């Protein structure tokens, strides 16, 4: 019996006095957002991501302010006396230059554009495709499921780099190939999770109730099952972004992705490999940018996962006394679940 029921019983009524104007229940999304806001790590990563996004958007502005284009070479001012890259801070090159005398700061900023664009686009495509396929195959079952599930597993196990190689050879490396390959592999991961969840949600009683009302399969899938999937899908999607960014930079590094002179962190780092001994900035700045971005997204993904399921144990819990949070075990989890079901403002995180 829930605590609410106890309350009602105590009062001997089955309804409660309600303020005029109606009651708005808080949806899972609203609750998740509130929890996320209180998580310091997650908020920090969100801020970092926003900063990176703004910088990326403003890359052309920086380029014109500095007077250095992305692909513009400055063989005179941009190269040292020995013909190598210029150190940071000289001649208006804030991050220094690369071996062709191009402004590294501008290139890193443009690289951010590529990474964020690829990350977000591929995740969007993969999520839509993965959720749809996962829902369909999990819900309909039968031979559709037998075929599609096998297909999903095959895609997941496939060495994606190999496919990227093949496509790059046949069609030539390009942005389109990068996005296609990354989307192709990301959707399978999402589809697999969605399929698993659909299979278990399908057996729940409220789905049976919907069927007894005469709901069509599409209605059941998208109105009933989908909202209950959002939690794992959201986490996966958030974590797909840094995976896509890493994937793209790896492809560009190997020469299979974005081709120079268009800047991508991957191909900048490829060039850096020959010069890092004399030009530390050539390696450090793009590497730092890449690491900070992926770290921020990974932390955000962790934060989202914790916000969606507050029973998960957390090490860097915001403002929590050590040991106050439960140890792994069932009883405390049920209490958490009950507390969150009362929808009060009890600070369940202390």
């Amino acid at each position: 019996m829930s605590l609410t029921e106890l309350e009602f019983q105590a009062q001997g009524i089955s309804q409660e006095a309600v303020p005029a104007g109606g009651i708005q229940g808080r949806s899972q999304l609203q609750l998740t957002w509130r929890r996320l806001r209180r998580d310091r790590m997650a908020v920090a990563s969100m801020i970092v991501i926003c900063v990176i996004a703004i910088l990326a958007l403003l890359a052309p502005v920086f380029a014109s302010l500095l007077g250095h284009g992305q692909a513009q070479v400055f063989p005179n001012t941009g190269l040292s006396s020995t013909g190598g890259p210029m150190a940071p801070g000289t001649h208006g090159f804030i991050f220094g230059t690369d071996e062709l005398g191009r402004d590294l700061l501008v290139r890193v900023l443009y690289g951010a554009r590529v990474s964020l664009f690829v990350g977000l686009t591929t995740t969007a495509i993969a999520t839509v495709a993965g959720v749809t396929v996962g829902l369909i195959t999990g819900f309909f079952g039968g031979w559709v499921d037998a075929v599609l599930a096998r297909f999903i597993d095959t895609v997941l196990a496939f060495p994606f780099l190999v496919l990227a190689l093949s496509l790059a050879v046949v069609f030539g490396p390009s942005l389109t190939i990068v996005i296609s390959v990354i989307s192709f592999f990301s959707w399978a991961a999402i589809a697999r999770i969605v399929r698993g969840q659909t299979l278990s949600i399908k057996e729940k009683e409220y789905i049976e109730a919907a069927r007894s009302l005469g709901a069509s399969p599409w209605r059941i899938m998208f109105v009933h099952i989908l909202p209950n999937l959002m939690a794992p899908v959201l986490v996966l999607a958030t974590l797909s972004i840094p995976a896509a960014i890493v994937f793209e930079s790896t492809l560009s590094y190997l020469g299979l992705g974005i081709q120079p002179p268009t800047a991508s962190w991957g191909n900048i780092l490829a060039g850096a490999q020959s010069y890092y001994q004399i030009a530390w900035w050539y390696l450090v700045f793009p590497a730092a940018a890449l690491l900070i971005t992926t770290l921020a997204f990974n932390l955000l993904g962790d934060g989202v996962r914790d916000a969606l399921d507050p029973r998960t144990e957390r090490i860097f819990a915001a403002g929590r006394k050590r040991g106050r949070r439960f140890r792994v075990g069932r009883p405390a989890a049920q209490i958490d679940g009950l507390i969150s079901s009362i929808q009060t403002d009890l600070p369940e995180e202390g």
Partner: protein
Amino acid sequence: MTSPITPETAPSAQSWPTDADLADDVLVRVDNLVKHFPIKGGGLAGRTVGHVRAVDGVSLTVRSGQTLGLVGETGCGKSTLARCIAGLIPVTSGTVTFEGNNITNLSRRRMQPFRRDIQMIFQDPYGSLNPRLRVGSIIGEPFAIHGTTTSKARKTAVQELMERVGLNPEHYNRFPAEFSGGQRQRIGVARALALRPKLIICDEPVSALDVSIQAQVLNLLADLQSDFGLAYIFIAHDLEVVRHVSNSVIVMYLGKIAEAGPKNPVYDSPRHPYTAALLSAAPAADPEAAANKQRIILTGDVPSPINPPSGCRFHPRCPKAQDMCATAVPPLEVKPGDPGTHVTACHFPVQAGEVLASASRGMQGYAR
């Protein structure tokens, strides 16, 4: 208390009731319903190695405005039967007729119009409502699916329903998690009521609730029945609850009907040893009556529906069983001395005044 069958008719062996008594107000008629679930064995092809015989030849009728109670232990097939009638699972053989229309194994599209008239209330108040939907959407879903009202009128209709079942209409935008068990069950009732159905199948609607809340929900169901002329198929394992709400009762055992009839004859003079044992197990409120009551204790567990006992399925546990019971399936018929509407499937029914020996097969039962 009217019974579902007119007293003039004498039902014949397996088909009860007969066509003669099919007056206008027979809502649902089930004929010899069989539902077997195949069990897939191993092997690459997944051969079927056996069947779970959940429902094995059940016939019944429900009249409009009446309540048919369905009792039995867990695993006797009552929930499966309900879902077959509601069209939620396909039927292996037999027919289900609603208002004269054959609704057995219809496609979803063909079944759609009937869904407005046949609704269901589920056992688990926590599982039968989608936790991500607001209550207004949940109750309003029948309107959305069958397109009967505009969305503006929908809100009014939903709030009316909420009020009718005893919920505060201001809670329209809340989520199920914010309600107690009893309230959630009321939400389920409101949802079932939305399209003014003719039949509501209640699958153990109060089993998961506390006793005081049970009474409230049962009273609500009774009110709704008289207000809207609803027929109920009421499934439960609590005999006293069934007695309170039903007009007629069917006792099921392992997929078959053991005994059926209007409630008073069945409760006051049970003919089937199983019914007698169930009734003896129900606690009596009056301490004197409780002291005088004879407890009949059945040995053994309910056998598996995959391989039910031969002949009368109850014979391994029956205190009155004899050799014939293991070989011949007893027909469902009126026993001498009973009104024509009270049928039993037993070779050696309990006679008036008979005291059943408790587990004469005693030790044998345990040794098995």
